[in-house]
């Protein structure tokens, strides 16, 4: 299957700060691609850059940024705004503040269809009610007339999802959609996203720092560290045999029933994410890496243990001991 979203060598900078340094990833039609990493590694800005929603002090460059085979790097704001909300949609981490407090749920949902399809208000509201039911909100007709402050966080996130689906997008970018929600609500939202994807053939780029979420939802995973994609792999093989030392460190931090022993402490990655300044060379993980060697300070090679896997490390697959 062809890639719906192709990102090659994406660089994002805010003034002198390089937030993303050459990230590449592909999201195929109908698959869930998880972007994983700790806070500040550049996951969210990558998503914003794809949508063309970077704040005005952020600059993006890339070798290639294409949606459905067509370049979107050269599109101006007007061209991007035609894609956004129509063929690519996004939901955010902050359901409490992402809806406009001054307008009803119905009017905020309807305007998407009115804008992109020139639908009538009536038709748009019908569609909104249908989608509210689709995201399992009870009495959708009544919800249309409600204001965001009358809804709980979980409901608001459902409204955001329903709103994102108004125009049947091909790509949904979800930036930590469950982080701000209760654990039980988290599970419901994730199940909802998985169902929607199966039913609608949606491609999802899911940003998360929760490996449990990754294990449950992803087809493919890209692990980001300090502005780089350090490993990209189908999900089963990533969990089965992580290659990059950072991925291994991340996985060792998660308790897996049956795999860990009661008397053994959980793993942790010592140290902090380094402050990567311009002109930084070598592997950004080397100060925290248990396998570091002198050549980690030089240019790092991207290795391909399988045709559909890659990781950014000096250590070749055959040198890498099983975790």
């Amino acid at each position: 299957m062809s890639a719906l979203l192709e990102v090659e060598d994406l660089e994002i900078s805010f003034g002198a700060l390089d937030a993303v340094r050459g990230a590449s990833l592909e999201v195929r039609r109908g698959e869930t691609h998880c972007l994983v990493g700790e806070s500040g590694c550049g996951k969210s800005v990558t998503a914003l850059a794809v949508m063309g929603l970077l704040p005005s002090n952020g600059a993006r460059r890339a070798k290639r940024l294409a949606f459905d085979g067509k370049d979107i790097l050269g599109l101006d704001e007007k061209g991007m705004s035609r894609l956004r909300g129509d063929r690519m949609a996004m939901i955010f981490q902050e359901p409490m503040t992402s809806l406009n407090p001054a307008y009803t749920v119905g009017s905020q949902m309807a305007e998407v269809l009115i804008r992109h399809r020139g639908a009538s208000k009536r038709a748009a509201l019908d569609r909104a009610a249908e989608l509210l039911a689709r995201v399992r909100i009870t009495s959708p007709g009544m919800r249309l007339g409600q204001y965001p402050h009358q809804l709980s966080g979980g409901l608001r996130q459902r409204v955001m999802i329903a709103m994102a689906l108004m125009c049947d997008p091909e790509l949904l970018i979800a930036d930590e959609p469950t982080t701000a929600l209760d654990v039980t609500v988290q599970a419901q939202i994730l199940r909802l996203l998985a169902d929607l994807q199966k039913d609608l053939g949606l491609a999802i780029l899911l940003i998360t720092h929760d490996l449990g979420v990754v294990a449950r939802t992803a087809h493919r995973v890209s692990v980001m560290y300090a502005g780089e994609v350090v490993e990209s792999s189908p999900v089963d093989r990533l969990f089965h045999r992580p290659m990059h030392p950072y991925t291994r460190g991340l996985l060792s931090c998660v308790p897996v029933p049956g795999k860990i022993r009661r008397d053994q402490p959980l793993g942790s990655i010592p140290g902090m994410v380094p402050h990567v300044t311009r002109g930084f060379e070598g592997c950004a993980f080397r100060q925290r890496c248990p396998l570091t060697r002198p050549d980690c300070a030089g240019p790092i090679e991207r290795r391909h243990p399988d045709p559909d896997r890659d990781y950014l490390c000096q250590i070749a697959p055959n040198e890498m001991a099983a975790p």
Partner: protein
Amino acid sequence: MLQFLARRLLVAVLVCLTVLTFAFALTRLAGDLAISIAGPNSTAEDIEVVRKAYGLDRPLVTQFFDWVSRAVVGDFGRSYFFREKVSTLIFDRLPITLTLGLVGLGIALSVALPLGVISALREGRPVDRIISLVALLGQAMPSFWLGLVLMITFGLHLGWLPISGTGTWQHFVMPGTVLAFSAIPALMRLTRAGMIDAMSADYIRTARAKGLSRTSIVLKHAARNAAMPVVSIAAVQLGFMLGGSIVIETVFALHGVGFLAWESISKNDFPTVQAVVLLLAIIYTLLTLGADLLNAVLDPRLRAA
């Protein structure tokens, strides 16, 4: 919503009653009214006659309740100085003041809102700085001076506008502009601050993610949330324009309520002073009430509170 309305109305009535009491008390504190009414060359007997004639010899409480019971039915007595009913006096002049205030507010809003929005969208850029500077100059400019400059320029040299009186709409252009000048800086800065705040909100990012047009993002999603403090201040500004335009009414010889207030204070015409103070208090209260209601329309969260 009904509960909200009822509570606001109750507060408004209480405010008016308080002002009523203060207006009465303050005029009595200004000195012996009988002496000032009788005039500087009157004898002690004259003063006693005046005191009796105006009922000033009665206990204060009696005078107060007498005045209040008449005031609530619109009877403010007769002016000591103008020898006319106070209500007639005020209602003759009210249209002038209202027109002037509304013209002033209209000019102020039509200048301040666009400038504030432009400033916010160009935050920190030269345009923003120039607008802020102009607003600062406007605020620093004394209104009587600006009034005179406008009169000399547009009235005398160019001859485009009449310089005094109230005959036509042209008469209100210059005083309205001068009045607007004092309100523009505050309105502009509030609009700017509100828009900057709103434009950086999460829901604006959502609106952009939905692919909405720039116009819709700025004028629909951001402006409605930025409007509330502007509405509140605009109401206060209008109240100020209606009650505090004495200087401008004097400069342009507009005989409105402000001018009447000034005259009656200087003449110790206390029935008129009391009535004007009460009227202005009611106007202020109504404006604030109106602003609260408008804000409740703008922000659904307020309706629940």
